[in-house]
């Protein structure tokens, strides 16, 4: 009997995005743009990751001009789990991943760097 994968393709894409700069807090819209996921798909994933203690969330402390933001980053457990899950996918497999997975190697230029 084959074991079920721990993370879905969409969750892996979110984990990969959060792994790029693990110490950096990211907001939902930036993650949505980076992964190509819609809010209705992205946010349930973020909720599950937070419930499992793999991701931490907080509201932005300083209030820059613009909307108040909810920020996310991986916990050490989340980082370990993400590294393990992503390592299990070989580089060629990543390249041939389904359309749902869009993992960028660098942050998109149009996004401002977060504090």
């Amino acid at each position, binding site marked *: 009997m084959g074991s079920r994968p721990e993370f879905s393709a969409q969750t892996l894409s979110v984990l990969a995005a959060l792994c790029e700069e693990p110490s950096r807090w990211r907001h939902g819209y930036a993650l949505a743009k980076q992964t190509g996921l819609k809010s209705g798909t992205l946010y*349930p994933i973020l909720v599950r990751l937070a419930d499992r203690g793999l991701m931490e969330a907080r509201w932005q402390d300083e209030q820059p001009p613009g909307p108040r933001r*909810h920020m996310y980053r991986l916990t050490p457990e989340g980082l370990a789990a993400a590294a393990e899950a992503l390592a299990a996918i070989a580089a060629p497999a990543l390249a041939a991943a389904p359309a749902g997975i869009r993992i960028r190697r660098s942050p998109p230029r149009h996004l401002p760097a977060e504090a």
Partner: protein
Amino acid sequence: MDGLTQAMAALLRRSMAAAPADRREWTEAILSEAADVPPGWPRLAWLAGGLRLTVLQAALVRRAGCALAFAAAAAGVAWSAWSGPPGDPAVAINRVDVITVVVILAALPWVIGRTRGQVSAGRPARLVRTGGYVTILALVLVKTAVRRVADAPPNNLGGATAAWTGEVVFLAVMVGYAALILACTARRSPAVPATVAGAVAAGTAIGVMAYALGPLGFPLRFAGPWPARLYDAALAMGVYLAVCAPLAAGLAAAWRNSRSSRAGSGFGPGVRAGVRAGTKPRARAGLGQGALAGLCTGAAAALVVTVLSTATIALLPYDSGLREWGAGHIGHWAPAAGQWGQVLGPGTRAGYVAGNSAFAAGFLLVLLLGPLLGGAFGAWGARAWHVLTRTAQPNASM
């Protein structure tokens, strides 16, 4: 577009109340970040995603609530059935009864879910499933109450073997009922949801009517000539309706099947097969839908009349008014008629409880035969529809 986006944002803000308090920050996050999203369709889609998240969160709460409600109801039934003196065979049977039925009701959704999927979207399916579960638990509750009196020494005239055999048959029947309820309300149900809802509603009405005509499973006796004549007429009408209900449900299911086949939409697997494969398979699919509709009608009627009647039997030992009414209206029909004097007098209640036990066992037969007869009548109704439409359109198959 701006108006639509604002309306969606307002809807999302209002819907936040449906989500649990500790989950609302996620919806707030979506709302606050909507300002970053380019206006127009992207922003509207972003907010719609927030609405989906809120609905998901609310659904999770509802699922947890359902599980908790089931656990509470099961615990209540178990607590009620558990009481009794140690060593009493009736108490042992009651405990086995409650544990087995609760395990069946808890495990079967998982088993059926693997093949038929989770509960179908829409209120009717949830209502039928919840109502079915509540009725089965209520039946266990009232049955254990009857058994506590009827099967306790010195009233256990039938012996332990007969009691345990009846118990095994009862549990097998309950598995069948629970599986039918779950399969017919699942996403990949073999029956059309509207057919199931209609058939269950008709069956419930027939069950209530049957209970009103004979609350303990026997026709009533009236003293005056006019009340007796009126009752006889009502009884004849009741029998007519009880036969017609599954027939009509089968006919309606076949009509719905042929209509959806013509429209090419197809409801269930059988219907789709009919659309693809021509008139004969379509008729067969219609026959299947008719039989299922009749089965649901018969099962609902049998379950409702059994619960109501068994509850009345369970109340008899404690309600003197009900006992006197029973002696006046059904005494001469009951097999334990000669025992009623003993029941109403001081001393033993053996004859009375033995008679009641016989009535309760009779309802096991009702539970067995109700769905079978309903299914047969439903298939008959579907066949009648097919014959009628074939006669009206002789070239339909060409």
